[in-house]
């Protein structure tokens, strides 16, 4: 049965419906790497949850419909998602931009899907808060999507669980029913609970399930998330940022292990020289391959003394490892780094330029395996004659440095801008797949599978896949949501 747009019009105003194929193609299909995605049949721009709920209930009656939920509007597009299906109907949440609750005392806020990192950072600042943001989020990237994607954030000591900073959520399942997780579910209304002091801090339940964990990471295949509450942090009253430049990851890893377990450093991560120079154009001179940046923050309670003792304790650790920190590196000062730690991005973004585009392979492993992985990947790249100066590395310890997000960003030539066979986009994708295969065989784990690595990510997880499919049948019985994504 084809879509009856009259029915859609009952739910949405005219300005909230997009049917023009050209506009649809331009907005949702044309990407710098692939223009073959099927044009959607329509897109809608809901402003509230009940619209979405009614819409989904209706779309369930449409045979072969494939509903895609979009929250980010990043340009240029270079996504590799599943838009090879036909009969795509888009629910575009980018206009749901409310930040409806900011509570400094409880370090929490509530955001709708269309809120971007820069928008959120600005609003939170007014309340003395900052978000727990990922590294260099792209302009237009949805906060909610980042968090649902389990993107790592910069402060491992604050991350007790992979789901952080996610707290509660509201979701419309693929059957159209509305659900709220954690304390947002009730009993009693959120408003009543709020009057009693609640602040949407408890993500668990209700009862004996954590549905939020099923929605997170599901890439819109189980439901459409319409808001989340999320953990925030205070803006530090004082902060010290240090750099360590070294040619081997291992001692840097030792530093991270020793400090994060003792909660001595706040934001901490490692990038390579290529990425450092891409982020900080003012950087000059030679650099050793790896740059570790760490911050020590002071807040309300004796911030100067906190920073002082933590710095000295860190220095003791560094002495034992024979590492020397510096207050600046290659002309880059603390002031240049600080905005990045608080959720801001850079422009131009290292992942793309007019002639290049990043092919990202990221996965999880442990920090003590990273050096070995990098060495093997270097070999792999050399084998394919891929220039190492086009490799960006981002190493982010997560869950208090018990695991690590390891990201290889291969800067490829955009289609039409090829300079070399080994850096052509398609070739680099091939290299990326080989890299993914290596990762899997050496203890790498694709907690966040995406198209390039999908074929590898699910290998060996048959029982797990079966479980996910059971959940899919519950929440999206007609399989209308993002068909083909993940293992569905």
């Amino acid at each position, binding site marked *: 049965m084809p879509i009856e747009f009259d029915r859609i019009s009952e739910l949405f105003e005219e300005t909230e419906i997009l049917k023009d194929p050209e506009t649809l193609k331009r907005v949702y299909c044309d990407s710098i790497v692939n223009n073959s995605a099927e044009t959607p049949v329509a897109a809608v721009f809901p402003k509230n949850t009940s619209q979405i709920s009614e819409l989904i209930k209706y779309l369930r009656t449409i045979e072969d419909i494939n509903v895609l939920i979009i929250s980010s509007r990043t340009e240029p597009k270079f996504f590799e998602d599943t838009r090879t299906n036909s009969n795509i109907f888009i629910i575009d949440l980018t206009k749901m931009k409310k930040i409806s609750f900011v509570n400094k005392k409880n370090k929490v806020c509530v955001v709708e899907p269309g809120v971007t990192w820069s928008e959120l950072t600005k609003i939170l600042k007014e309340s003395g808060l900052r978000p727990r943001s990922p590294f260099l989020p792209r302009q237009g990237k949805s906060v909610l999507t980042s968090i649902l994607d389990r993107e790592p954030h910069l402060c491992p000591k604050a991350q007790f669980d992979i789901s952080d900073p996610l707290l509660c959520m509201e979701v419309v399942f693929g059957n159209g029913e509305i659900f709220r997780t954690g304390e947002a579910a009730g009993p009693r209304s959120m408003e009543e609970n709020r009057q009693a002091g609640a602040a949407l801090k408890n993500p668990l339940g209700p009862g004996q399930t954590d549905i939020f964990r099923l929605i997170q990471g599901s890439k819109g295949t189980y439901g459409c998330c319409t808001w989340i509450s999320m953990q925030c942090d205070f803006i530090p009253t004082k902060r010290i940022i240090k750099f360590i430049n070294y040619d081997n990851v291992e001692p840097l890893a030792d530093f991270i292990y020793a400090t994060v377990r003792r909660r001595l450093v706040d934001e901490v991560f490692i990038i390579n020289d290529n990425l450092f120079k891409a982020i900080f154009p003012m950087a000059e001179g030679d650099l050793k391959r790896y740059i570790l940046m760490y911050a020590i923050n002071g807040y309300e309670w004796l911030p100067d003394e906190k920073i002082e003792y933590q710095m000295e304790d860190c220095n003791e650790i560094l002495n034992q490892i024979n590492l020397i920190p510096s207050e600046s590196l290659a002309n880059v000062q603390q002031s240049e780094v600080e905005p990045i730690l608080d959720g801001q991005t850079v422009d131009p973004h290292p992942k793309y330029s007019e002639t290049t585009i990043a092919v990202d392979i990221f996965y999880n492993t442990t920090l003590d395996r990273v050096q070995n992985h990098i060495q093997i990947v270097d070999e792999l790249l050399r084998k394919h004659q891929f220039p190492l100066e086009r490799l960006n590395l981002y190493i982010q310890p997560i869950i208090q440095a018990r695991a690590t997000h390891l990201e290889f960003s291969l800067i490829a030539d955009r289609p039409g801008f090829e300079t070399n066979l080994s850096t052509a986009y398609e070739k680099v994708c091939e290299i990326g797949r080989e890299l993914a295969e290596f990762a899997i065989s050496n203890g790498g784990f694709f*907690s966040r599978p995406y198209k390039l690595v999908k074929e590898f990510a699910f290998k*060996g997880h048959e029982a*797990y896949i079966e479980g996910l499919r059971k959940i899919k049948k519950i929440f999206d019985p007609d399989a209308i949501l993002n068909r083909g994504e993940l293992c569905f």
Partner: protein
Amino acid sequence: MNKENLDSITKTMEVIVGKRFVCADPGILDTYAFNWNADNLSGGVSKFANRPLCVVMPEKTAEIVKVIKYCNQNKLQFKAMSTGWGVHNTVGSEGVIQLDLRRMNRILSLDPKNRIAVVEPYVSGAMLQAELFKYKLNCHIQGCGANGSQLATVTSMVGQGWTGISTGFSNRNVLGVEWVMPDGTVCHLGSWGNIAKKKQNDPEELEIDASEWFLADGPGPSLRGAYRGYFGAFGGLGVFTKAAIKLYHWSGPEQLELQGNSPTYNLKGSKLPAGVATYILNWKTWEDFKEAGYALADSEVCWALCRIAPFITGLGIFPSNDEFYEKYEALFGELKYNLMVITMADSKREFKYHQKVIKEIVMKTNGEIFPMSQDPFFSAMTFMAMAKQCNTMRGVFRAGGGFFTSLGALGSWDWCVEGAKIGEQLKQKAIDSGGLVDDGADNVWGTPYEEGTFSHLEELYMYDITDPESRKASVEYLKSVVEAAQEYPLGLGLGTVDGEGSAMHAIFGPLACNYHKWLKAIKQAFDPNNASDPGFYLDPEKIKD
């Protein structure tokens, strides 16, 4: 069930686990029917809940798989338990095969660098901790004490704990599990899943390396969300046979040297280890207490930050009720809204900072450092009790033998304190009628977790379990708690735990986004034959669509 059928079942079980590890003797089975809080479920009449059909004691995952498959094929039910404390370990109805996982008691692997341990079900907090201090590591131990199972708390139970400010909440302390699903499928969650497949076909031959169990979630959505929420499934959704547990930094010594004899163990010389300070901080009003709680959580200086009411503090410290009676009022009478704080430091400068912050917060929130908490003997015993988690039983059970929990919020600290006020009022009524121990009415216990991610406070209560009237009072009080949880804006309180699962869900589901319908769907999807005992989980047959 007739004898012939029972014999057939037990014989099959004997083939799977060995004759010695199966028992269907009613007297033996009664030791599985009897449990803490069974009296509340029976209207105060009996400490026995349901008797299982037989008890089976497997040693390996493969044996559990066989038992489960047999149950599915023969329309039987099974329920696993590990350390087995609490009526939620009992079978939900007669005719269920009880799996006692006592033989699965290995610490399979430790990775001190990445701070991960992989354990089997019968590894308690005390057993694990005994192997961790030497690596400068510790684990989160759930509130009931170090005799509880580490695996059960992260997969199947609740998971609050005294040191939650630094060691988190059990739900969030898992990095991987081996889950034998209700149909007998073995599912490895997380990073170990793929490696497991690659290594061997026989799961029993898999070599366990904790460093491979670093993430429980994915690929894609996390099935952790299917098997538990605030509470676990209490055995209603299969069996967990391995779990990777997060370990935390321990600033203390490799071994805590003790002196004395039971029940008055203390640290040797009543001396706190270097870098450790303990406090009981006291405020006169809920408001100041509340503000201080926020400040202490935000300050990041606490290793333990816990509200333990004066009454239970006294019961826990004194080795007998007689001594408690003699000394409690004089020593603890001035305590009102108090918090126990322990700081642990690795360097002198860190220690100095911690103490300055504590004092600053106390001053700014109109609090005081309770003088007795600085007494070396008391201070050392407090630290010992918190580090080893060894005094919970004494603090809550010795008074009258009857103990349970009631109301309390899990969320913001503000909300928790509101809950505490309501709980206090409700309990006062029950105390006034004489049936419950008069603990001052305010007996909330709880803590902010993870430097303030969320907090919880729960209203504890005690009664004389040997006195039928006191037991009745407990039953009546719990009924009022279930009503109050519906009436007051406090979230799903813990007093609703250990109720018959479906009955509780039928009440609270409609009040909370009909979560019970989704729970039912999950149960039906993963357990189509309802083979996993749903007694304290959800029985699809008892929940209307």
